[in-house]
């Protein structure tokens, strides 16, 4: 009897240890996730110190990128990243919102799921596939059609002629922007569709009841109600576009030059790193590339943080 009780106590004690141990294990893993992000930041900062010390603030403002004389400046990649992402969003945001409108207001019920799934499959295709497609199919196509057209159409228009100046290479900033637009389109579409779907039907019915057209319902009821969520989705897409590497690397042309022409080859932060990192010799070269990574991480971190904050706000209101 006594033995029975003591063995029972032992079992309970063992369970207790296991229980506490499991709790700490899970907590440790959760803290581990934080540590990894901290590690990413710390390692990037430490890695980029030599370059930042050497070039200082000039690193952000100069265009030169010369591995031979070891003079590096990040202006061209930063410019390329911002411009390609901006053009991509200019195309993807209206198209994405229109698709979301179609899916939530016009599309017959039986067609909604298949189209939704197809758009999400577009999001699942790895970026290297877009890259190889862009290089072999899309860029030659643009070289033969869109680019000569843009060059000749705007050759006599003062500002626009500078935007479309030079020979049609096929590859370049414009091609990269268009591929980025295709890639972020599914993200914007699926988030906009989700938040559009969450608008209370009563609001829309009331608007239809006083005689609004479908477009007026979307424009004056759905969009204002979901504004925060849509902005969150757009920011999430922007975060993707800024950090996108492989698809851009294939078609951007990798030229360290800030040029006004959109059809000229350029480079982005991620494409520069992908193209040059394994071939970089010397600490300063490597360190400059890591500093580029730090800048990219900083920009995307801010954009993604805003996205999350916005999406959290709409979740709270709807949820």
């Amino acid at each position, binding site marked *: 009897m006594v033995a029975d009780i003591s063995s029972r106590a032992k079992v309970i004690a063992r369970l207790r240890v296991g229980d506490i141990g499991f709790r700490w294990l899970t907590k440790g893993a959760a803290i581990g996730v934080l540590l990894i992000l901290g590690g990413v930041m710390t390692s990037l900062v430490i890695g980029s110190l030599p370059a930042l010390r050497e070039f200082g603030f000039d690193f952000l403002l100069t265009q030169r990128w010369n591995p031979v004389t070891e003079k590096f400046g990040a202006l061209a990649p930063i410019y390329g990243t911002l411009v390609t992402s901006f053009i991509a969003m200019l195309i993807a945001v209206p198209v994405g919102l229109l698709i979301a409108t179609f899916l939530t207001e016009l599309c017959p019920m039986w067609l909604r799921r298949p*189209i939704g799934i197809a758009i999400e499959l577009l999001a699942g295709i790895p970026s290297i596939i877009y890259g190889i497609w862009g290089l072999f199919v899309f860029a030659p196509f643009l070289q033969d059609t869109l680019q000569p057209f843009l060059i000749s159409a705007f050759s006599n228009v003062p500002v626009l002629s500078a935007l479309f100046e030079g020979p049609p290479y096929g590859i370049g900033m414009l091609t990269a922007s268009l591929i980025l637009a295709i890639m972020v389109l599914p993200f914007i579409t699926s988030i906009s569709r989700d938040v559009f779907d969450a608008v209370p039907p009563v609001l829309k019915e009331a608007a239809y009841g006083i005689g609004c057209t479908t477009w007026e319902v979307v424009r004056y009821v759905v969009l204002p109600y979901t504004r925060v969520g849509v902005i969150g989705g757009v920011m999430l897409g922007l975060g993707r576009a800024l950090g996108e590497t492989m698809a851009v690397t294939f078609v951007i042309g990798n030229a360290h030059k800030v040029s006004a022409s959109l059809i000229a080859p350029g480079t982005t932060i991620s494409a520069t790193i992908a193209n040059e990192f394994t071939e970089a010799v010397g600490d300063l070269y490597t360190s400059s590339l890591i500093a580029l990574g730090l800048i990219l991480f900083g920009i995307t971190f801010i954009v993604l943080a805003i996205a999350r904050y916005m999406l959290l706000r709409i979740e709270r209101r709807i949820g």
Partner: protein
Amino acid sequence: MTSAKSSSLYSGRRRRNVIMMALSIGATLFGLGWLVLVLGALLWEGFSGLSLAVFTEMTPPPGSAGGLLNPIVGSLILTVLAVIIGTPIGMLAGTYMAEYGRYDKLSSVVRFINDILLSAPSIVVGLFIYEVMVYPMGHFSGYAGAVALAVIVMPVVVRTTEDMLILVPNQLREAAAAIGMPRAFVIGKVCYRAAKAGMVTGVLLAVARISGETAPLLFTALNNQFFSTNLNAPMASLPTVIFQFALSPYKEWQQLAWSGALIITFTVLALSIGARALAASSKQS
């Protein structure tokens, strides 16, 4: 007079509506058109070079025929290893956030950070692993590639584990606790079982995500022209081989790049459709 004016106002509104709705249909066709164009080109170019040799022969030197056996094996090894490393950490962290600290400060911070990691540029992960593993070790290695992929797997698993465990009804936990089960057992024997399908879905999605990842492998596993299962040495993988071959001037290499792209896309699509089917079937039961 007023009726004419109001009817012209009405027809203007109608016209605007028709234009916008036509545009939204056009936008949808535009979006789906890209899917057709990309997949179409991929099928066309990929299938024309697909043969048994692709799966049985090594990557060739420039200008001769060969296959993709070593990158396929390399990709499989790296992916499996990444899942083995990343999944347990992700599941445990997700468990903490859903079961122990659902409302505490740590969980909300981890949730925020995890969401950022989920969409952070993967090339930065490659740089990070280069700094902490490749540089100290002095050479590129399969281990470093696997760890880089694991860093990408982890946030996906954290997210789905947490979401799925939160869906488990509290009555199940209370019933298990009422018969005297310790908390760890409640989680292990009750919650995990109830959330199993969802958690497996998460792992499948994570595998789909990393099977096409190229950027983090470029400076970690690098590439290897020869067959190698040595994890302490550079290792070939499908995405990096595609990157190298597609940008080369050799016809044979470009053809192999297309075939490799087709293989990856099919794997990814199969995984994401499988994950979707699994999630749908578990919702019904």
